[in-house]
């Protein structure tokens, strides 16, 4: 499964509908950017999709969902807990195997933070924490990436490096972004969300930044 | 360094552990905690040594914290012999069929309870308890242990019998000091105005000069009743060999170490039987301590 066709997506909060009903069809190879004002429902939509695809996706939520007391290695390794037996995972918790260590270190190197492998995530900066969540998603290696503002805390060059990496590793992705330039550069389809509805759906080569700005 | 020490301790305690289980057939006895523990431990360590040499088995005394604990340990076969009071002996023998009273002190055939009062109450000694009714009413009063014969059963019996009232209705405050020495100290100090205790404890403390007779005095003595005795379980022969019960009985009756006897204090041990304690059983049933 790498493309999907979702219909009748709705979400309510406190009796008030915040999303939908809307339909979204994503084909394999599509890299969708969700854009729109904050509060338009992008995060909710990402959550909905995550549930709909039975969590068969690499998710980078806005609040990252890191286990703060664990070091970077374990937070990343968590992406593949389903690949190993319970005892293997338990041993890894106490003393990781060198194969996994090397693999995770390599991944972190690409994100420019391999020296932080054994630091508890609680003591990292915001940008570093965000990269740990991204590393976990990469390590998870699901066919689809769902990411909610994955580069909000990263500075210029690093933001580009991360987006490049995500584009390269995931054939299909849905990424909520508030940076329009980034969306146009790294995604091939732009979906604009306004008041819980799809207000814009175009391939990025037919759009300019100013077209999208009308949503804001 | 610390680890090394711990390892040594562990090994030595393991050794103790196995040593203890190797000699599983230790003859264990206990006694009701009716007096200060130091005295009891000293006295019964002596008895243990004596019995051990007479019986050729390892004999161990274990101190307990309450009369009921002594009875329970006897009932649960964790001890095979016990120095009980009248009431605790009756309780124990009811619970352990086949157990027997085998020896008592000469004095235990006719034991007494002293009612004592702090002199500040102005209560004068009397021959009849009934003549003290007005002076005693509304005073504070302490028994010894809840399970004691001389410190609870008999005094309560006479209070009910003579005054026709429950102790807690007759006195303004009723307490249980825990043991006879403690009763003596509490009344002497005036914490309670009146108390009841084992006459032997009083006499011994008096002889040793441990009583401030200006502060506390005996105001009434109960009629005599049977009290303390050695009680043994019925199944000791199966565990320690034929005739063991007989040998224990003889050893106790032959005990003539004066120092040891004085520590009880008893002049001699004489034979006893379960029937000797019938009056105690009846009294206990009468005041509802026994069902």
């Amino acid at each position: 499964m790498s493309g999907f066709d979702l219909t009748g997506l709705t979400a309510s909060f406190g009796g008030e509908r915040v999303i939908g009903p809307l339909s979204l069809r994503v084909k394999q190879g599509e890299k969708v950017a969700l854009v729109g004002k904050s509060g338009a429902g992008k995060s909710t939509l990402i959550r909905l999709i995550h549930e709909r695809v039975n969590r068969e996706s690499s998710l980078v939520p806005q609040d990252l969902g890191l286990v703060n007391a664990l070091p970077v290695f374990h937070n990343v390794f968590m992406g593949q807990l389903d690949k190993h037996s319970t005892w293997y995972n338990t041993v890894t918790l106490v003393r990781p195997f060198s194969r996994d260590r090397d693999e995770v270190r390599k991944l972190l190197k690409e994100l420019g933070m391999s020296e932080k492998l054994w630091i508890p995530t609680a003591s990292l900066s915001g940008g570093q924490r965000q990269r740990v969540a991204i590393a976990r998603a990469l390590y998870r290696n699901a066919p689809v990436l769902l990411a909610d503002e994955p580069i909000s805390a990263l500075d210029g060059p690093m933001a580009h490096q991360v987006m490049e990496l995500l584009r390269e590793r995931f054939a299909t992705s849905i990424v909520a972004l508030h940076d329009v330039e980034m969306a146009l550069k790294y995604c091939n389809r732009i979906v604009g969300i306004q008041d819980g509805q799809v207000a814009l759906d175009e391939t990025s080569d037919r759009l300019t930044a100013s077209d999208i700005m009308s949503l804001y | 360094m610390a680890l090394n020490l711990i390892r040594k301790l562990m090994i030595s305690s393991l050794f103790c552990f196995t040593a203890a289980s190797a000699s599983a057939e230790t003859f264990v006895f206990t006694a009701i905690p009716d007096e200060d523990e130091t005295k009891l431990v000293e006295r019964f360590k002596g008895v243990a040594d004596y019995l051990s040499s007479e019986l050729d088995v390892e004999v161990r005394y274990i101190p307990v914290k309450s009369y009921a604990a002594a009875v329970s340990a006897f009932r649960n076969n964790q001890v095979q012999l016990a120095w009980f009071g009248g009431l605790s002996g009756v309780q124990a023998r009811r619970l352990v069929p086949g157990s027997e009273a085998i020896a008592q002190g000469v004095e235990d055939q006719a034991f007494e309870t002293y009612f004592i009062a702090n002199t500040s109450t102005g209560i004068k000694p009397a021959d009849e308890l009934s003549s003290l009714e007005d002076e005693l009413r509304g005073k504070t009063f302490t028994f010894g242990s809840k399970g004691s014969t001389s410190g609870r059963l008999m005094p309560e019996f006479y209070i009910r019998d003579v005054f026709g009232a429950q102790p807690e209705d007759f006195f303004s405050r009723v307490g249980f000091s825990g043991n006879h020495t403690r009763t003596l100290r509490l009344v002497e100090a005036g914490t309670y105005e009146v108390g009841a205790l084992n006459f032997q404890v009083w006499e011994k403390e008096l002889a040793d000069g441990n009583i401030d007779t200006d502060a506390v005095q005996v105001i009434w003595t109960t009629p005599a009743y049977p009290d303390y005795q050695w009680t043994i379980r019925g199944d000791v022969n199966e565990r320690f060999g034929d005739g063991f019960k007989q040998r224990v009985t003889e050893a106790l009756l032959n005990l003539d170490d004066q120092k040891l006897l004085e520590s009880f204090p008893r002049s001699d041990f004489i034979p006893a039987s379960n029937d000797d304690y019938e009056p105690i059983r009846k009294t206990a049933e009468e005041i509802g301590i026994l069902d």
Partner: protein
Amino acid sequence: MLSSPTVRTSLIFVAVALFSLLFADIAITASNPWRDLGNFFLGVITPNFFSSEGLMTALLRTVAFAFVGVALGSVCGFLLSLVYRFLPVRIFCAFIRAIHELFWALIFLQFFGFHPLTGVLAIAIPYSGIFAKVYSEILDEVDPEPGRLLPPRTGVIAAFLYTRIPDCWVQLRTYTAYRLECGLRSSAILGFVGLPTLGFYLESSFSQGLYSDAGAMLILFYVLIATMPLWVRPRLLPVYVLGAPFFLGEGLPIVWGNVERFFTEDIVPSPLRDGEGLGGLVPWLSELMVNEALPGIWNTVILTQIALVATGILTLLAFPLISNHFGGPVRRTSGHVFLVIARSTPEYILAYILLQLWGPSMLPAVVALALHNGGIIGHLIGRQTNTIRLRPDAPTGFNRYSWELVPRVYRSFLAFLFYRWEIIMRETAILGILGIYTLGFYVDSAIQNIRFDRAMILILITALLNIGIDTLGRYIRRKLALQTMPTC
């Protein structure tokens, strides 16, 4: 002010306590209590560490029982906490923790006798119930988000180990360490019913007026507790836990027949045992209720309410002792020492000491409960005030206390107090063993008369009363929206 629900609730409780005072037996009956107290303090400052050869063994046994009991309790409690969301488990845990360690010990003494298992289980069982509750509360606080992000086929155990445990590990450890300290206190008082721990020797020395010996034991006990951070090290823990079972002493062998007898005969109500059937049960029960249970409940409730308010008052008086907002370092150091001693001394031992000195009434019990619990809460509140930053021109002295600090800490103060309500009641019941006419007095009497059927029913009543108070306490805390973490 009166419209504030916290103030109104406090006033209601004060009124209840004042009303209870009318019925309470409060008196100093000793003719010369201050001389005795003086002798006692003289004993404490002239301790005799070489009185009994058993002293060091007793100390070792106290530690051993605490380690084995708490370790067993925390393992069982942890397993229970995983299924704590099921109502039957919650009821079961509430029930086993509503029965005090000493009651458990008295029960086990009847069939295990003086076997180490008696002491171990007496600590482990109620602690399991407490651990289950607190562990599950701690686990519930953990952020659920990481768990939702795991790959769908992740094993339950792996998911638990990676996403739940790490973030609350420190809290679990802190709480378990705190419980170990409580375990030392529990272990010490088990000596009062005959187990070979510190209480055994303390009781002997005290009842014989050997205050220097008793003082030495108390001092050693404080040192033991105060130095815990030095000798309870994570790396040494496995050594302690594995080694402790070897230091429990041998006791006496268990006779298993006694266990069967206890459950099939001893605790069966005597009318049923004697074949009188249900017809005999009703008068038996009503006699027990009227003569023992009801007076016991009445006294227990009265004493609890007075002790609760006394604890509150003492807390409010004591917290400035360690607060940075008052006094100099000297005063605070002595304040710390006072509070550490107050909370390290088990209330049972405090009550025992005061009863010996002042004579029997509810007063020693109230003072003991207030000192111990007030010491604990005062310490927590005092520490909390140290995190408060006052404006530079804040008033000083009593105005600072009453205008700046008390209003800020009052809600957490009430939260702690209601949290300890149930604990105070559990202790109140047990103090009956010392001769105050609460439920424990009747339980002890029944046991002294070898009537375990009566004892068990009275213990059950005590447990139900505790569960009731616990529920009420939680209701009030929820109603007033009071939050506390279970560290006291």
